[in-house]
């Protein structure tokens, strides 16, 4: 490859007068951030800088979302790596982890290489693939986890599915420990959940929809605690929805077990009464739960039991969602509403956490869990930066999403706070 002459010239950007919140470096102050040649710099270098006025804005390390479905390869009518990355940028995310439930499933080094090549070509943010735990996500035989790690996966998961065989899962955790990647687990006991599509409770009873009991999640969270303990390795429980799961995680973490949990915006923004008109944009897995569950999730976020936030961005085409409730696929898009919802709900409305903590949860915590070099504004690191206006009031407009899909229950919601500019490797990839 020949490099263009321009790339040898030094480029500089100064982000002026923003409130720089960099939890990794315990920095929270109003000041200027310097970017030279795509990396964070200690001071200005070169001439003719691009100046970005960040007065009144938060200058944060680029946000990380470790739970995203980009649908490629295989489901390009729902989302592509390119469109999903644009949606991430529009939501303020500079690094996303894409789940392996593609077609083919990301259970081989070849598929991982394809995803990485494709991302390098078309994605405007950093796309890090997760590999499968089991071959074909079938829960029967281990995927080549070591080869996947060498191919560059940052985690392994059968997300969308859950390994039911406890022995297989135990070996997966042990093996993942050897190669140094964390396990992300979609916690669902298939026997307990059966054909459940909504939270088992008042509304499932009233509407006659098959119930998805909280115990179906809690049983697997408990299983994961036991295996994390047995194997002394990190197991991360995805999209926690039930109060009991929070209790189990809190107890285990207090004992030092390497177990963690994440929360999606919809599980705190909505409760199961949202399904009363059979709106398939309120059908997700795990389902929307009861008020007490939402309260427990907020408590878990407040006390640090749940220290990862994510979208579980799950695009589906209109024609796929516009069917009978039982028949509709689970999931909603989330990248472009995630930060707004969490700012609005966690920081402004419920005051569960303060802004610096939210930034920490979106940067340092996922970077540490995945063992990646991201989520800080340290000098010489890649200049991935998100500018956030925490006070900006805006209205969600699904029709204007960068994502190819529109399946959201939040269309028309008025939210306070959002990303206004997203910078990857020193380049603005999106701005409001």
């Amino acid at each position, binding site marked *: 490859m020949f490099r263009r002459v321009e790339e040898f010239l030094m480029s500089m950007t100064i982000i002026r007068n923003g409130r720089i919140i960099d939890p990794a470096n315990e920095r929270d102050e109003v000041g200027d951030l310097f970017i030279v040649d795509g990396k964070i710099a200690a001071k200005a270098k070169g001439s003719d800088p691009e100046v970005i006025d960040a007065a009144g804005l938060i200058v944060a390390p680029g946000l990380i979302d470790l739970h995203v479905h980009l649908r490629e390869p295989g489901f390009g009518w729902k989302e592509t790596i390119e469109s999903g990355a644009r949606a991430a940028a529009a939501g303020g995310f500079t690094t996303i982890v894409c789940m392996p439930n593609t077609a083919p499933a990301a259970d081989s080094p070849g598929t991982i290489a394809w995803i990485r090549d494709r991302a390098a070509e078309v994605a405007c943010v950093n796309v890090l693939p997760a590999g499968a735990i089991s071959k074909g996500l079938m829960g029967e035989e281990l995927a080549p986890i070591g080869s996947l790690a060498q191919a560059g996966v940052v985690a392994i998961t059968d997300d969308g599915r859950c390994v039911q065989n406890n022995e297989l899962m135990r070996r997966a955790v042990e093996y993942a420990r050897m190669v140094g990647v964390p396990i992300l687990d979609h916690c669902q006991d298939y026997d307990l959940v059966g054909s459940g599509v909504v939270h088992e409770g008042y509304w499932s009873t009233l509407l*006659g929809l098959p119930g998805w009991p909280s115990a179906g999640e809690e049983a697997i969270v408990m299983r994961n605690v036991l295996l994390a303990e047995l194997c002394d390795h990190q197991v991360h429980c995805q999209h926690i929805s039930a109060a009991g799961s929070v209790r189990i995680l809190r107890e285990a973490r207090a004992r030092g077990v390497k177990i963690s949990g994440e929360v999606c915006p919809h599980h705190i923004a909505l409760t199961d009464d949202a399904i009363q008109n059979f709106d398939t944009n309120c059908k997700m897995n795990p389902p929307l739960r009861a008020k007490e569950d939402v309260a427990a999730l907020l408590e878990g976020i407040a006390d640090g039991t749940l220290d990862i936030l994510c979208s579980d961005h799950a695009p589906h085409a209109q024609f796929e969602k516009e069917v009978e409730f*039982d028949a509709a696929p689970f999931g909603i898009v989330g990248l472009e509403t995630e930060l707004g919802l969490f700012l609005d709900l966690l920081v402004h409305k419920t005051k569960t956490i303060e802004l610096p903590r939210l930034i920490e949860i979106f940067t340092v915590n996922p970077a540490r869990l995945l063992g990646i070099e991201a989520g800080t504004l340290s000098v010489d690191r890649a200049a991935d930066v998100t500018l956030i206006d925490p006070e900006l009031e805006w209205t969600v407009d699904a029709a204007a999403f960068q994502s190819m899909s529109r399946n959201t229950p939040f269309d028309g919601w008025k939210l306070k706070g959002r990303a206004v500019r997203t910078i990857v490797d020193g380049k603005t990839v999106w701005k409001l």
Partner: protein
Amino acid sequence: MRWQRKDLLGIRELSAEEIIFLLDTADAFKEVGTREIKKVPALRGKTLVNFFVEPSTRTRTSFEIAAIRLSADVINISASSSSLIKGETLKDTAKILEAYHADLIVLRHSSSGAPQFLAERLKSSVINAGDGAHEHPTQALLDLYTIRAHKGTVAGLHVAIIGDILFSRVARSNIFGLLKLGARVTLVGPSTLVPREFEKLGVTVTHKLDEVLETADVVNLLRIQHERQRKEYFPGIGEYVRLFGLTKERGKRLKPDCLIMHPGPINRGVEIDSELADGTQSVILEQVTNGLAVRMAVLYLCGGIAT
């Protein structure tokens, strides 16, 4: 009152006044069935599609006879003849029915909410003939009609609904209708099929049939649906009969004027003793006859709203 709804999706959204109005309208239609020429021109020139995505003979036949007595033209589409099984979506199939200018669509579907899904998208009237475990409004209306015909009123009565409540759309529609009209409702059945969650709807839940026998004014026995139930829900038919079957002995403890109801089809010797099903307290066949009058009322009222 004036009827305002183009669709009948469930009993839950109806007011007591609307339910009474439907029952009164059914009263007026009941007599048609006893005429020598069993036909009135109320829906002449209208097209009704019986769209049964889930198989049913009784309800489909009942709607068909009701529609014919109102002079509507009736087309039956069942799951086996439907393009749904060729991969067409419910929405597309429905749009095609609308393109044929069908005035009324009677839908039976295995998914809760399917009739609402159609009603939101079509100008035609949509009548719910049973959706998943959600609602079966015309069954509840004919049950209420039958109770009212015998007791004069529904208010103040104690109605026991016995059997598989969890998977029953008949139970849900009955619960909503009975409570709206002022009855007291007790649900009886195994704990696996009558979860306590139902108490939040305003009913009493018990797992002992003997507790209701002497106080019930009506016992409504639901079919135990072998085809739907996985074996985890109860150990077997023998044990079910022992605990929850309306046996001859239990029948003796009922009040003499207690009505015995069943939405059918009956499993003789399971939820109900065969002789009791045919006995003097049984109104099971009246329910079937009343179903025609109630469905005529529903089709007439909703069919008059849709344009």
